[in-house]
């Protein structure tokens, strides 16, 4: 399977508005000021606590990050005289700052708010604790900045293992997925699968928001799996545990007969276990995918049954030689 020339999309920046749009409910956010700067770009998936900047040390000031203000920063500002605070803030605001996020529903001083309003730097406020704000903002930003690609294939959650089924057009990916759904598994996406790499080592398959859980079955047309089979048979995203490539049965090709060899495929720089499954009339591919998924779970639990069988066999042979 060739995964090297996949087009990779990676956002260079996101607007503060996007953070507000996506995280308002989760972080219980409100806007205190600087609303006109809501379109300001954020370029890095990281945050900064500007304590040192407020104390006057501006070398290495990570101004391009979202600035999180907690108890420490707010109380420190309160201890400064108005003149000191004005000067420190003016120095800070000579840098481009995307936004401030306050935690614990803290109330900043008016000098600070006025300056944010004048400079158009959005001030958001959450009711959550500082560590909670930091964790959730970083998680959100990381996900936003994750590289993404689109693969022609089918993604199914089979016994809790995210299986990405690939193969040439007409090989039977959709039909296999349909049978898996029929057998109680969940469809993530058919034909168009968005793939996202999160935290540089996890791949997630996601459905496309336009086609959702519709599927094209040749001869029948477009079918909505969610309507036909119900909400229990679909999900919108699933971490990929296994890539299964269906291919036409070739006499001369070598297929793994023992399961002792483990192959991997690399997608967006992440290595995922990979199986090549030959397709032939009369071969029930759905059941093969099921057993592959279950075997993958066993391996994850530390039980490589093929290896165990072979070790037992070798023990028997060793004992036989000695006796």
């Amino acid at each position, binding site marked *: 399977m060739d995964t090297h020339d996949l087009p990779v999309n990676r956002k260079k920046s996101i607007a503060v508005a996007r953070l507000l749009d996506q995280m308002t409910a989760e972080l219980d956010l409100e806007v205190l000021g600087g609303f006109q700067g809501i379109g300001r770009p954020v370029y890095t998936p990281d945050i900064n606590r500007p304590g040192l900047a407020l104390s006057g040390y501006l070398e290495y000031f990570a101004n391009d990050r979202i600035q999180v203000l907690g108890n420490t920063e707010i109380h420190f500002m309160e201890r400064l005289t108005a003149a000191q605070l004005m000067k420190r803030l003016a120095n800070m605001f000579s840098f481009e700052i995307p936004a401030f996020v306050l935690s614990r529903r803290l109330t900043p001083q008016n000098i600070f708010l006025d300056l944010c309003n004048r400079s158009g730097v959005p001030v958001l406020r959450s009711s959550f604790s500082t560590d909670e704000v930091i964790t959730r903002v970083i998680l959100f930003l990381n996900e936003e900045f994750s590289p993404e690609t*689109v693969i*022609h294939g089918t993604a199914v959650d089979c016994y809790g293992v995210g299986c990405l089924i690939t193969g040439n*057009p007409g090989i039977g990916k959709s039909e296999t997925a349909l049978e898996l759904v029929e057998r109680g598994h969940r469809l993530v996406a058919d*034909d168009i699968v968005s793939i996202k790499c999160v935290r540089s080592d996890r791949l997630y398959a996601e459905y*496309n928001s*336009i086609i959702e859980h519709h599927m*094209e079955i040749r001869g029948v047309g*477009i079918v909505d799996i969610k309507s036909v089979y119900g909400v229990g048979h679909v999900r919108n995203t699933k971490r990929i545990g296994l890539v299964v490539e269906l291919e036409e049965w070739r006499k001369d090709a070598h297929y793994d007969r023992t399961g002792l060899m483990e192959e991997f495929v690399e997608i967006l720089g992440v290595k995922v276990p990979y199986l090549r499954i030959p397709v032939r009339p009369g071969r029930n591919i759905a059941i093969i995918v099921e057993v592959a998924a279950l075997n993958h779970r066993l391996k994850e639990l530390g039980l490589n049954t093929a290896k165990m069988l072979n070790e037992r066999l070798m023990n028997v042979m060793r004992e036989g030689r000695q006796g």
Partner: protein
Amino acid sequence: MPDITKDIQVVNSLGVHARPAAAIVQCVLRFESDVFITFNGNRVNAKSIMGLLTLAATKGSRLKISCSGPDAEAAIRAIDDLFTSKFGEE
């Protein structure tokens, strides 16, 4: 093997909805060449209806068609004709 690209504009008023998408797939399947359509940073296989639908290409959209294969030239001409004929719509 020839590798050709061509920019094509959507001219029918409803854009590339299900029926035109099916017509494109039908058309492209006659050819051996691989055909991809790129729009708005998305690149999809023109032999997939679902892929074409995700483009959500409205009237006036400019699509980049790329063909590679032994009959690429004929394929691109056929697709061009199909778009120009507005898929038999308005």
